[in-house]
């Protein structure tokens, strides 16, 4: 993976030193909170319901064992022994104290990490396919491009005060695991007629209070044009984006108000101006960066141990069937380590779990680790002969749950258990859904299903693109949960449809059960997933299951 150059190191160290001075001046009274708040937010430090929260970037979800151990150290020394992996491939510490934060940032800098641009109206952490560099369906590893974008966007003087935050996602595979159509810019690698790799550029996707699927402004962008083109998009947005209204400031609104054709024309015009200014330094840098992402030296060895364990051990087989994904080297597998043990907080890992993952990555995974936006941890390169030993080690640490892609593999934002913006809790809803369906033993019967839960309209939990989405709201001083169905975050992205009136906290899990019992009754067989069934039958049967038959007659 990419290691910091002297330039990166000096930049991050200088930012730590600046922030140390800012915290000192805040504590001695030289800075007011109004003056200090934008400075702490530039360094990822929020003030939440019960404490400060520090959001640390894990660029494009790639992290090495040394960094993972440092996160564990930080969790033990300055927090409460755990960290929370988020839907944007960040990690959040929920309990730091203000005077300790400069030391925490220093400890991050020691391992080439930082919290810069994890908040504020700037280009945020660039997210990527968590199977990048390993997936069987991949055209090219997207991470060198993501790293190029990270370096370009970090402290970019033109883009530090955008109308609003700006999120870029990138995937090197046609199967979109990075939700590119719901980002400000989505980059999806495709091939043209000549077989060359390039990007489909999608602009103006986003969730939040106005969910929109992005518009393709370029079907095929040659990879060498990436930076000038992205800069053109940002430049047009920076000029047109609305600064008068926070709720209309994201680029999705700009695209909507300007019109897709007109914005594409403006981007192309700006691109024509910018392209000649890129004299090739970006391509030289990209070539250097690429070397840092060279694949590991894959082993060549028999895979009998995996096949034997699969045949002999039903627990191992269940895990292998759900938590492994095809690797481009067929002696290897991509392993998803579930951070969703039934009843656990989605995305949380204890410091002991982090250290174990670091050890296992070194022993079995060519020292590579990824964090997914679905709040799990990935070992992208594991030789199949090592899988049984890996599974045994994971299982001993509550990390061996065989549920990836199933009902208990839920995305949930921190919600009102932590977040100052939340309007309802999300974590306990996720915990109860997971334990409830585990107790019913229906999880594997229901099959592939993505439930996503947000504790407010801002949609950090991606509820709009959940097959079943749950949105927690405050209705007259009581928690209320609205359900959407049929959302999809893949290359066939779709925004879910609201079922109708919401459900109280103690009604939401029974409501989800009614939806899923209806699905089990109406599906054409176990091969028809929930999403496929939804696309075939639509809302009516689920609405009837939720609200009774009368609801559809009234609606008609």
């Amino acid at each position, binding site marked *: 993976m990419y290691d910091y150059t002297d330039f990166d190191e000096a930049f991050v160290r200088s930012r730590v030193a600046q922030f140390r001075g800012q915290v000192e001046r805040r*504590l001695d009274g030289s800075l007011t909170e109004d003056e200090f708040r934008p400075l702490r937010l530039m360094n990822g430090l929020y003030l939440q*319901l*019960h*404490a400060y929260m520090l959001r640390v970037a894990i660029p494009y979800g790639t992290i090495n064992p040394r960094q993972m151990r440092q996160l564990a150290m930080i969790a033990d020394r300055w927090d409460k022994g755990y960290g929370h992996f988020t839907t944007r491939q960040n990690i959040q510490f929920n309990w730091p*104290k203000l005077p300790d934060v400069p030391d925490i940032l220093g400890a991050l800098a020691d391992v080439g990490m930082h919290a810069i641009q994890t908040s504020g109206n700037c280009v945020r952490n660039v997210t990527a396919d968590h199977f990048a560099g390993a997936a069987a369906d991949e055209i090219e590893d997207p991470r060198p491009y993501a790293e190029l974008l990270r370096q370009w966007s970090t402290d970019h003087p033109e883009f530090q005060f955008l109308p609003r935050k700006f999120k870029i996602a990138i995937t090197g595979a046609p199967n979109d695991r990075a939700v590119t159509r719901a980002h400000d810019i989505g980059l999806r690698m495709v091939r043209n007629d000549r077989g060359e790799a390039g990007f489909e550029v999608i602009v103006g996707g986003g969730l939040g209070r106005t969910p929109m699927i992005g518009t393709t402004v370029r079907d095929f962008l040659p990879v060498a044009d990436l930076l000038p083109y992205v800069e053109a998009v940002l430049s047009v947005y920076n000029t047109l984006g609305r600064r008068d209204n926070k709720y209309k400031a994201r680029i999705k609104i700009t695209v909507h108000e300007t019109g897709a054709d007109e914005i594409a024309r403006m981007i192309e015009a700006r691109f024509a101006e910018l392209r000649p200014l890129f004299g090739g330094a970006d391509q030289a840098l990209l070539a250097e960066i690429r070397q840092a992402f060279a694949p590991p030296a894959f082993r060549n060895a028999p895979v009998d141990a995996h096949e034997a364990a699969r045949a002999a051990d039903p627990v191992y087989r269940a895990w292998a069937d759900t938590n492994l994904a095809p690797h481009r080297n067929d002696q290897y597998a991509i392993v998803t380590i579930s951070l969703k043990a039934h009843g656990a*907080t989605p995305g949380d890992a204890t410091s002991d779990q982090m250290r174990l993952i670091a050890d296992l990555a070194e022993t079995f995974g060519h020292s590579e680790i990824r964090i997914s936006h679905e709040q799990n941890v990935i070992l992208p390169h594991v030789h199949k002969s090592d899988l049984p030993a890996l599974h045994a080690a994971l299982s001993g640490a509550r990390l061996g749950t065989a549920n990836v892609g199933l009902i208990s593999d839920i995305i949930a934002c921190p919600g009102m*258990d932590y977040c100052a913006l939340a309007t309802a809790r999300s974590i306990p809803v996720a915990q109860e859904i997971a334990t409830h369906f585990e107790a019913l033993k229906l999880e594997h019967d229901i099959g592939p299903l993505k439930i996503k839960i947000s504790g407010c309209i801002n949609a950090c939990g991606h509820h709009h693109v959940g097959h079943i989405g749950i949105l927690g709201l405050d209705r007259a*001083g009581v928690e209320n949960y609205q359900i959407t169905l049929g959302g999809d975050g893949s290359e066939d992205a779709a925004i879910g449809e609201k079922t109708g009136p919401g459900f109280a906290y103690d009604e939401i899990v029974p409501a989800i059960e009614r939806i899923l019992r209806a699905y089990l009754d109406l599906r054409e067989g176990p091969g028809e997933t929930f999403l496929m069934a939804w696309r075939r039958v639509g809302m009516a049967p689920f609405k009837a299951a939720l609200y009774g038959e009368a609801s559809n007659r009234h609606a008609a």
Partner: protein
Amino acid sequence: MSRFTPKVVTANRLIEGDAVYLCADDRWSVHHHEAELIEDEAHAQMRLLHANAQRGVVVGAYLADARPGPNGPEPVHFRERFRTVGPSNYPHGKQADQAHV
């Protein structure tokens, strides 16, 4: 004229970030029931000004609805109730601190 809903002044501490409540004797307490229950709107504004002036102690002071209870003021809204306890997924925050008292 609508009746004034009683309030407490609440904020987060600058250093620790935890939720605190302004008491009648100007202390900041981590316990909601020790807060001053303010039943007069003009007095509420005065107490909020007092809180906002303590820039080296607390951050983001605001008035939150409260009601009298047997041990002192109680929160009305569930958000404020959560702030008096801590998160529901771990025994962290005030619920842990209070276990030792």
